[in-house]
């Protein structure tokens, strides 16, 4: 079930109305699990078994982690859990990609390209499950109630495309689920309405103007490519923030708060600030479960820069099983690395850059925006060759 359909509208209205009018407070978590299961199963019933099985396995391993004191056994359980979850993600999402790479390297079809249907939202729920296991291991989650975890795993407003929740803050709201005051309900309804408007009015309209970069090849001119890039930059922002608004608003209507995902990212003054404002739930996940385990900022400077590249390449690959996404991730990793060197070594030495004048800040915002917009071409196109064609169309006279 996708958010901008009448089916979802009917489902949400009926679910929320029954939730407050009929379902006793104590039974609301169970109701949410059932609603989430119905929601997910409506799309592809078979894959509901997959998410349920993986959730069950995560819960079992998480419970074992909580009961075990032996450091070696705990480490083994964590590795087992993370490898299992990642293996499922890799199998469904990346098998075709890796098979294609092998065949390309060998210059012949050694491996058949399997026709695997990627389960809906697999990139999101696998990341939530990894987060739970790692945080249990680190002692940040000290209690894993089965019902709380089931609601967390099957919460329908975030099931399709996030925001990627954190178990601790989510579970804390479940006992009991308190009805929000009427003003807050109004806020959530506004949010949902604005979210739908963002998607159908702005994002979908921008799709048309972005056609030159999404399907290049017809006789487009410079202006078309530049307008297309700007349109895609707007499209992806309004598409994803619109979705997040609907998700957060719907969760709010159910009396539950979920993380914000965007904080006016195109106004960021540097690329590091951009990533603290764009898809916040994913970037904080990458920080906590990829960058920091690699050593974070506490390693030697060159290692930190390499870690940034690795973390962003993984972030890129998470978005899609294609080289364009990897290169897009590396583009941002390179930007973060350059910014780090710039902020630590150049800015302190140039008073003008430290001054924070309106002109400097405006230039910073414009540069960051241009950097991000340029990168979106890789996101939009279906191949590196197509992306190259777009860049050539933009830059070559």
């Amino acid at each position, binding site marked *: 079930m996708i958010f*901008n359909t009448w089916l979802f509208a009917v489902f949400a209205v009926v679910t929320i109305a029954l939730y407050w009018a009929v379902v006793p407070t104590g039974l609301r978590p169970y109701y949410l699990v059932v609603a989430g299961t119905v929601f997910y199963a409506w799309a592809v019933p078979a894959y509901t078994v997959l998410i349920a099985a993986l959730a069950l396995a995560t819960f079992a391993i998480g419970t074992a982690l909580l009961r075990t004191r032996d450091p070696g056994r705990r480490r083994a359980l964590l590795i087992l859990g993370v490898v299992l979850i990642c293996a499922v993600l890799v199998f469904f999402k990346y098998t075709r990609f890796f098979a294609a790479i092998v065949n390309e390297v060998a210059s012949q079809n050694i491996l058949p390209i399997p026709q695997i249907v990627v389960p*809906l939202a697999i990139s999101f729920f696998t990341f939530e499950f990894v987060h739970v296991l790692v945080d249990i291991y680190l002692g940040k989650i000290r209690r894993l109630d089965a019902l709380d975890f089931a609601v967390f795993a099957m919460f329908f407003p975030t099931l399709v*495309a*996030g925001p990627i929740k954190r178990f601790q803050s989510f579970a804390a709201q479940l006992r009991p689920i308190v009805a*929000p005051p009427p003003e807050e309900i109004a806020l959530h309804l506004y949010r949902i*309405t604005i979210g739908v408007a963002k998607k159908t009015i702005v994002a979908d309209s921008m799709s048309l103007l972005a056609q030159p970069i999404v399907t290049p090849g017809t006789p487009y001119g410079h202006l078309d490519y530049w307008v297309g890039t700007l349109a895609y930059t707007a499209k992806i922002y309004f*598409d994803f923030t619109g979705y997040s608004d609907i998700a957060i608003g719907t969760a709010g209507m159910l009396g539950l708060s979920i993380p914000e995902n965007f904080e006016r990212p195109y106004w960021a003054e540097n690329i590091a600030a951009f990533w603290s404002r764009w898809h916040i739930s994913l970037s904080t996940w990458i920080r906590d479960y990829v960058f920091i385990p690699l050593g974070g900022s506490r390693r030697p400077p060159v290692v930190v820069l390499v870690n940034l590249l690795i973390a962003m390449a993984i972030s890129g690959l998470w978005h899609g099983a294609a080289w364009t996404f990897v290169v897009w991730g590396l583009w941002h990793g390179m930007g973060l690395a350059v910014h780090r060197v710039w902020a630590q070594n150049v800015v302190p030495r140039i008073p003008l850059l430290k001054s924070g004048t309106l002109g400097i800040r405006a230039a910073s915002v414009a540069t960051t925006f241009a950097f991000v917009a340029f990168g979106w071409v890789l996101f939009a196109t279906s191949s590196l060759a197509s992306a190259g064609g777009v860049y050539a169309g933009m830059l070559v006279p």
Partner: protein
Amino acid sequence: MADVLSSDPFFRVFGRRLAHPCVLGFVIALVAVLIIVFGSSSDSHFIYTDF
């Protein structure tokens, strides 16, 4: 939860009058009409549902 309201710029500017069902209904109807007039039929799926 009250922090959500006081920190939201929409509510700070227009006040809690916005929470009145009539105002709420009017805004929803207005946005619905705007969606019908200016919405696009070109592309209905959400990008991030591909990930």
